[in-house]
């Protein structure tokens, strides 16, 4: 995946951010809840610009905790997250979050929900609605701008959540089990759309998931976390060609083999 291997060494200075430098880096992240429960232990990871990384593991392995620490929503007990080389102290404009339960405001229309990130940044109404409208269309919800969340299906609600995250034009999209609350068919369609979306939008994706198939299907890199305390068990780089027919991926031998391998690795953690 490292297309640019011949970046001059000098550009690794302090001001430049060359493409092959990690955009997100976690250094020795520990997280202890309530003084006793160790949720995460010594997480050192690098997330490359433009890649899609899955954080995969059984429940209780702290994958959502790690994502929220990267988002700046939680503080690590020890360690540091760096985004573009700068330490994270809280949420920032270069990161946008997609929530498991969608986190839409029921009293706001699709358009206002999608524009909400911009609204909080103080972008003027006409401009933010124009940008939101563009992304509402891009996620496939054209014509639903004036609907309210309760008038949409679960999958459509999550598309609004995705449009909201895209509209703020962040470099990194943090997705917390984005498809776990939608049905299987919707999930598949959504996954295919996400692969298409990546070709249009130059974003770095970090996705938390408990679905092995989903991780293998979508990701350039899979981080396997083991539970109690959450540690990095394995980092895998699936080599799957995603340019053709999205259905072909699910039949590719690499896809099937890797899914099996990961299951064998995770099996011991599942009671």
């Amino acid at each position, binding site marked *: 995946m490292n297309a640019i291997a011949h970046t001059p060494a000098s550009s690794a200075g302090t001001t430049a951010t060359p493409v092959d430098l990690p955009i997100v880096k976690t250094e020795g992240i520990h997280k202890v809840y309530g003084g006793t429960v160790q949720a995460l232990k010594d997480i050192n990871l690098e997330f490359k610009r433009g890649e899609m990384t899955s954080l995969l593991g059984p429940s209780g392995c702290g994958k959502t905790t790690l994502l929220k620490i990267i988002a700046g929503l939680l503080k690590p007990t020890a360690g540091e997250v760096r985004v573009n080389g700068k330490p994270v102290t809280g949420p920032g404009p270069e990161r*946008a*979050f997609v929530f498991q339960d969608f*986190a839409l405001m029921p*009293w706001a229309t699709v358009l206002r929900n999608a524009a909400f990130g911009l609204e909080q940044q103080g972008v003027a109404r006409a401009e933010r609605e124009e940008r939101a409208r563009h992304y509402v269309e891009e996620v496939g919800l054209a014509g639903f701008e004036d609907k309210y969340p309760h008038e949409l299906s679960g999958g459509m609600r999550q598309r609004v959540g995705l449009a909201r995250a895209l509209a703020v034009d962040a470099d990194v999209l943090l997705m917390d089990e984005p498809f776990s609350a939608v049905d299987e068919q919707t999930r598949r369609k959504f996954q295919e759309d996400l692969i298409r979306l990546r070709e249009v939008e130059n974003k770095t994706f970090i996705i938390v998931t408990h679905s092995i198939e989903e991780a293998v299907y979508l990701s350039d890199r899979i981080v396997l976390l083991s539970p109690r305390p959450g540690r990095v068990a394995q980092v895998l780089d699936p080599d799957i060609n995603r340019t053709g027919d999205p259905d072909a991926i699910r039949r590719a031998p690499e896809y099937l083999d890797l899914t099996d391998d990961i299951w064998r690795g995770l099996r011991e953690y599942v009671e």
Partner: protein
Amino acid sequence: MSATVPAAIAGGPTGSSIARFSQMPAMWRILSLALFFAVWEIAGRTNFNYAFPTFFETLAAFFEMIFDGSMGAAYLRTLEPLIIGLVLSLGVGVSAGVAMGLRKEVEFLSLPIFITMQAAPMAALIPLITFVYGIGLTSKVLAVIFLAMPVITINSYKAVRNVPPSLLDMSRSFMGTRWQQVTKVILPAASPMMFAGIRLGVAEGFSGVVLAELLITPTGIGDLITFHRSVANFAHMYATIASIVAFAVIAVSLLYRLEITLFRPEKRGLS
């Protein structure tokens, strides 16, 4: 399913029943009232109780009091402590409740007071109020406040506490300031439960003012009830009681309408 607002706080029991009632076709509403009045008329004609007037006698007494001006004058007297008391209860109650919901230290200081106030039979305190503040307007206003404020405060507090945590995270992750979080997310999300409390509070306020007028000194509606009872004008007494009941019901329903128009655009057109 992961609805964005738990059904239990989306309007409360009174809210949903008012909504259901106003959704009924006008025919049915008129029919159910007509049925009730017919049963009243028949019960009155059976003479099971010498003090129980028929519906038409009561209606005649009602119009008599309207035209001789005694009803209007009574309402003017009653409305004064009621409105002053309700305005104070709303202002202080909602702000105290919201402050308790937002800040731990305010919660520790004031929650026990309001829980006690809500649980205690406040009517028992009315003689005490009279003892301290005499029989004037102050006592009657206090009676309204004592009954109306606790439920308004407790509901506002719980409404703020019940805002889905993912909505708070959402506002924070999209760079919202605390002020934006409160005004754009917490208050709109809390408004259904808050208004449920306000409706209960207004109903309690009516009890408070009638209790005060019956227990402290007979003025206004309390005077009208007491007077007609003492001279055995039972039709007039019933008409007065029925009028205050109807007035309270109309006030609470109008409040529900106001809430929908002001704060819940997604429910407009449903009722």
